[in-house]
C-alpha cells in the first residue's frame, strides 16, 4: 500500500544544535502513528517540519508519493502543543473563522457536538478551562475534515474523563479511515491508541514498530513481584532468576503460570503478590534510560 507519508533522511540544524538527525520513517494510511521520546528528543521539531510549519535543513518528505504542494494544508489538521487563540472571540466564532479559511470545511455544529463544545459555544476563548481549550484545539484541527491529522501532546493537562473522551474521538477518527500522527508522554495513551510507534532520542529514531513488537523486543518480559518480607531461603532452587529491588523480590519470567505453581508448591504466602507484564513504559525506559532530561 502507498504510504500516506514518507520521510527520508530528515535533518534540522538550529544555530548550534542538531535537533533532528537523519530521521526516516513511513506512515501507512488509516493508522495512528505515535512519535515518542523524552523532552528535547526532537519530536515536535520533526512534526513541525512534516506539517510544513518549519523548514528542514535537508531531507525529503513525500505525501501520497509526491512532494507536498499548496493543497497539503487543505488536507491536514494540526493540534499544536503550544499555541494561542484570538481572545475576544467565542468558540462558535473561532470555529466559523477557521472554517472560512478552508475550501471544504466541516459542519461546525456537528464538530462542536463531536468535541463536546456544543454547550459552551457562546463562551469566549479566554474564559475556557484547560480541557475546554484542548477540545477547541482538537476541533480546529478537524475543521477541514482532514485526511491526515497531527496531534502534538493532545492530552497534556486533561483530567481522566477528558482524556478518555479524547481517546474515543481519536479512535472514531481512525475508524473513519483518517491517519493520525501523535506525540505523547503518556505510554498508556500510546499503547491504547497507536498502531505503530517510533521512539526518538537526541534527534534520531532509535526504535520503530508496533507496540507489541517493541514490547516483545525491548520490554524485558514479565515478572512476579513478592513482598520483601518473604523468607528468601524459601526461594532457593527456583528455576528463575530473582533479585531484590526497592524492598521487593522480583522474579523475572515469562512463564507466569509455572512461576506461581512453583511458589505455591513451596507454600509461600501469596498475599501481597503482584504480576507485572512488560509494557511500553519499560520499553521507553530501557531505550532512553532513566536519567532525568531537561
Amino acid at each position: 500500500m502507498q504510504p500516506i507519508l514518507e520521510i527520508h533522511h530528515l535533518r534540522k540544524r538550529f544555530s548550534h544544535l542538531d535537533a533532528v538527525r537523519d530521521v526516516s520513517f513511513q506512515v501507512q494510511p488509516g493508522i495512528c502513528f505515535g512519535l515518542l521520546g523524552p523532552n528535547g528528543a526532537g519530536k515536535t521539531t520533526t512534526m513541525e517540519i512534516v506539517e510544513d510549519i518549519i523548514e528542514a535543513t535537508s531531507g525529503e518528505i513525500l505525501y501520497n508519493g509526491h512532494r507536498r504542494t499548496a493543497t497539503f494544508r487543505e488536507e491536514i489538521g494540526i493540534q499544536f502543543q503550544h499555541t494561542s487563540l484570538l481572545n475576544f472571540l467565542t468558540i462558535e466564532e473561532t470555529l466559523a473563522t477557521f472554517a472560512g479559511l478552508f475550501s471544504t470545511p466541516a459542519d461546525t455544529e456537528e464538530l462542536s457536538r463531536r468535541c463536546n463544545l456544543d454547550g459552551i459555544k457562546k463562551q469566549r476563548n479566554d474564559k475556557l478551562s484547560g480541557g475546554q481549550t484542548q477540545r477547541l484545539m482538537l476541533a480546529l484541527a478537524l475543521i477541514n475534515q482532514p485526511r491526515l491529522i497531527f496531534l502534538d501532546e493532545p492530552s497534556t493537562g486533561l483530567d481522566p474523563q477528558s482524556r478518555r473522551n479524547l481517546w474515543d474521538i481519536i479512535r472514531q477518527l481512525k475508524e473513519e479511515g483518517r491517519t493520525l500522527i501523535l506525540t505523547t508522554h503518556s505510554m498508556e495513551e500510546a499503547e491504547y491508541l497507536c498502531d505503530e510507534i517510533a521512539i526518538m532520542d537526541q534527534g534520531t529514531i532509535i526504535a520503530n514498530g508496533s507496540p507489541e513488537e517493541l514490547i516483545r523486543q525491548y520490554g524485558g518480559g514479565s515478572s512476579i513481584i513478592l513482598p520483601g518480607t518473604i523468607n528468601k531461603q524459601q526461594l532457593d532452587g527456583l528455576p528463575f532468576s530473582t533479585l531484590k529491588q526497592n524492598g521487593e523480590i522480583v522474579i523475572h519470567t515469562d512463564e507466569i503460570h509455572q512461576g506461581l505453581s512453583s511458589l505455591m508448591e513451596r507454600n509461600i504466602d501469596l498475599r501481597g503478590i503482584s504480576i507485572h507484564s512488560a509494557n511500553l513504559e519499560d520499553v521507553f525506559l530501557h531505550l532512553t534510560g532513566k536519567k532525568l532530561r531537561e
Partner: protein
Amino acid sequence: MNLRRMWAIFKARNYEFFRDRAAFGWNFAFPFLVIIGFGIIFEGKEFKQFQVGIFPPGAGVDLLQTTLPPAFQHDRHIIFLPVANREEGEAKLSHHKIDLLVDALSSTHAYWINDSSPNGSLAERVFLASFMAGKNPPEKGVTSGPQIRYIDWLMPGVLAMNMMFSALWGVGYVIVRYRKNGALKRLKATPLTALEYLTAQMLSRIFLLMFTLFVVWIGADLIFHFQVHGSKLLLFCVFFLGGLNLCSIGLILAARGTSEEFTSGILNFISWPMMFLSEVWFSLEGSPHIVQLFAKLFPLTHLLKAARLVMNEAATLADIQVECGILLISTIIFLGIAALLFSWNE
C-alpha cells in the same frame, strides 16, 4: 488572493477590536478628550494673548483709575493678571509666567520685561505703541477670506495623530503579540497566505480607523462646529490614504519580531518624532531648514498638509496631488517590504 479567507480574518479582527473594551474606549476617548481640552482652552480667544502683570492689584480691577493708555487697556490681545507687588511681578517675569509687568499708577508709566523673552519684547512694543495711538496711524489692512481658528487647524492633527497611534500599535504591536503567543503559527497551519493575512489586517484596521474618525469627528463637530472649506469626500479620502500608509508602516514593524518590549520601543522611536515634526501641534514655519526637510520624510507630514489644505483652504485633488502621490507610492513600497519580510514564526 482568496477573498473568503481574507473576510474571515477581517471579521475576526474586528470582533476583537470591538470587544476589547479598553482599547475600543481609548481609541475614541483619546482624540475626543484632546480636542475637547484644546477647545476649552482656546474657545473664544485668540491663540496668542500677551499676559501683562499689573500692580497694585486694585488697579487690575478698575483700569479707569490707572495711568495706562486706553489703547493698551482695550487691546484684545492683552490679558491683565493682577499681582500683589513689584517683587512678585518680577518673579513671575523671570519665570516667563507673564510677558510684561506694569505699574498701573505710575506717573512715569514704569514697566518691566524679561530681556530673554521674545514675547516680552513684543508686549513691550505693543505697550510703547499704545502711547502713540491716534497720532498719524499707518494704514491698516485686514486679511480677507475665512478666519481659521486654532481648533480648526488642530483638528486634522489630532485625528491624524490618533490614526498614527492606532495604526502602529493596532497592527504592529498586535501582530508581534500573535507571533509570540503562537496564534500566527496556528494560522500558518491553514491555507491562508501571508499576503492575504496582512491585507486583511490592514483592511480591518483601516475600517476601524475610519469608523473612529467618523465618530470622533461627528462628536467634536457637534461641540465646535468645524469649518471644512473643501470637499468632505476628498478629506475622507486623504485620511483613508494616510491610514493605509500608517498601517503599512505598522506591518513592516510587525514583520519579524517576537518581543513586545522591543517592538514597543521601535514604535515609540518612530511615532514620537512624527508627532512633533509633522506639525500635529504646532507649525514648523521658521524652524531650521534641515528640520523642515527631515519632517518631509514622515508620511504624517504629507497626510496633515493635504488634510489641512482641504479643510482650511478648500484645496482640490489637483492641489494636493503631490502629497497624495507620496502617500500612495510609499504605501505600496511599505506593503511590499512588509510582505517580503513577513514571517509567521520568527
